[in-house]
């Protein structure tokens, strides 16, 4: 009864174009923003920040980026881990070589550098698609990890081969390093996530998004009606790389603090983010959030239920998690290829008419 568009007249095209056309949705969105910015920072503690909120915020940015490439433009990528590593190492080099610049800008520039690298590795997409492109991006994944392992310049010739985030502040508050406060890192990542989501939404509802989707749905028809396939694919790779790079930079500098590239940005990371968007919903901004939340929360919930309540051994719960994620992916691919986002859409459709069936 509450959730409906009847009586909510759109008198301009600008209003019809807005992100949340239904008033109830808009209210929900503003409420979520208020809670995220004004409530959570006051109740957050280290456990919540490190186990749930920071990984969710950072993976959601990566999922947004990958969703632009895979969900909107239809170019399969298995190189997300490698591209996150580019963001992380770019951020590390910037932080150590230009300490006087604020880390906020370091992270944005890292996104830009990753966008450039992503475009380079996206060039084969002009000739190949589908499985073959997936293999080409897989090569990017292994090459980039190898590069950061083997070229000492990237880790400033440190003996361990690791990179460590030096202490940096924003407005005098520590964001990176060992002495950070949970609320500060949380807010820092939240700002990036909200900005990324807004930009991603604007890109996908405008002409850029339509070009990407046209390429995804039928590339030959897209070219014949005037889409330049080179430009459309490269902008998708660039936008995707930008977000993935930002998430990699945040993952390294704010969340982990110290990174060994093969461990933090291995092929598993690529698959994790890919699973997020498959479960969340390909071609949906909301789906990127839902998928990231789902795969971040699943291990935590399983651990609480399995280890704390039922008293199962830890390793069994860890294995169970792999089984459940694998099973869910198969289930989603068969039953709901558009993921959680589609389930949400169907629910909303039903809500519009509730309590009447038609």
């Amino acid at each position: 009864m509450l959730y409906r568009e009847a009586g909510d007249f759109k008198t301009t095209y600008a209003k019809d174009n807005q992100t949340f056309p239904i008033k109830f949705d808009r209210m929900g969105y503003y409420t979520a923003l208020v809670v995220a910015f004004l409530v959570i920072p006051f109740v957050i503690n280290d456990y919540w920040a490190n186990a749930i909120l920071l990984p969710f915020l950072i993976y959601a940015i990566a999922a947004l980026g990958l969703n632009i490439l895979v969900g909107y433009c239809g170019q399969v990528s298995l190189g997300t881990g490698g591209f996150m590593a580019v963001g992380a190492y770019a951020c590390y080099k910037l932080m150590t070589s230009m300490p006087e610049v604020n880390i906020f800008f370091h992270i944005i520039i890292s996104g830009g550098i990753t966008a450039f690298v992503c475009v380079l590795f996206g060039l084969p997409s002009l000739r190949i698609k589908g499985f073959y492109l997936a293999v080409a991006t897989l090569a990017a994944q292994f090459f980039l990890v190898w590069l950061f392992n083997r070229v000492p310049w990237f880790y400033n010739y440190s003996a361990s081969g690791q990179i460590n985030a030096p202490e940096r502040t924003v407005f005098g508050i520590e964001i990176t390093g060992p002495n950070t406060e949970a609320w500060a890192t949380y807010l820092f990542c939240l700002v990036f996530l909200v900005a990324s989501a807004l930009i991603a939404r604007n890109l996908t509802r405008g002409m850029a998004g339509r070009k990407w989707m046209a390429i995804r749905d039928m590339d030959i028809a897209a070219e014949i009606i005037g889409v330049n396939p080179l430009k459309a694919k490269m902008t998708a790779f660039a936008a995707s790389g930008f977000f993935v790079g930002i998430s990699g930079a945040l993952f390294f500098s704010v969340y982990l603090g110290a990174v060994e590239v093969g461990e933090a940005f291995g092929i598993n990371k690529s698959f994790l983010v890919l699973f997020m968007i498959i479960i969340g919903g390909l071609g949906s901004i909301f789906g990127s959030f839902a998928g990231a939340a789902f795969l971040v929360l699943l291990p935590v919930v399983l651990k609480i239920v399995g280890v704390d309540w039922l008293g199962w051994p830890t390793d069994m719960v860890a294995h169970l998690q792999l089984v459940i994620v694998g099973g869910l992916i198969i289930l989603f691919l068969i039953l709901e290829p558009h993921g959680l986002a589609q389930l949400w859409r169907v629910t909303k459709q039903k809500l519009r008419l509730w309590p009447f069936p038609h």
Partner: protein
Amino acid sequence: MNAQAESYVTDDGRTIGPTVMEMKNITLRFGGVKAITDISFDIREGEIRAIIGPNGAGKSSMLNVISGFYVPQEGEVWYKGKKRPPMKPYQVAQQGIARTFQNIALFEGMTVLDNVMTGRIRQMQSGLFSQALWKGKAEKEEVANREQVEKIIDFLEIQHIRKTPVGRLPYGLKKRVELARALAAEPSILLLDEPMAGMNVEEKEDMSRFILDVNDEFGTTIALIEHDMGVVMDLSDRVVVMDYGKKIGDGTPDEVRNNQDVIDAYLGVAHD
């Protein structure tokens, strides 16, 4: 063949302008197979020009040459008085040539509105940064072009399915959405590849009416391929007849109907 400069008025009061596109001695080969052999014809501004012929005559290949999808081995394409250099299909589209496909080529995952908006690529040129912030040029452009698109949506009577994903629509409506997408580009030449394939009589009548209305209201030049002889003879101003990749007839519907070669191609010849 010289480009005709002077315009004339048809029986039903439409003005047919000078030549806008001219195909000169086009030959297209796929390996050893000649799909098109030495064909020349012209398209004049504001007219409905039909290309007909039996299956495999090379009609669709001809359309693909015009839209830049195939590059002919010999011959020249002249467009708006200039010889067209070899170019990619998207560049041809940017020059104002829009088309529909024999087998519908819509973007199934997008809504009708998004499909038709995609047709306006030529008019929407704002940069990526402006779009990312949804401010300035991008926002204005979106609203201004939406108005134009809504006019076309009204014109083709597809308002009720505006926000429906194209994948869920029936065949006849998809054909109409595809026409809308092509029209949204405000093309100088609209190429229709079998706009009435697979339709029943009623849908054919609807589609014919839309084609005539488009030509009449927007003055769009239309080149179409069609199998239904009744439709072609009723709609078109001039007809090119192809058979086995060669041109066997060219002229008004009446001239073509009485052309012996055309009758032979369609009805067969007695061999004695």
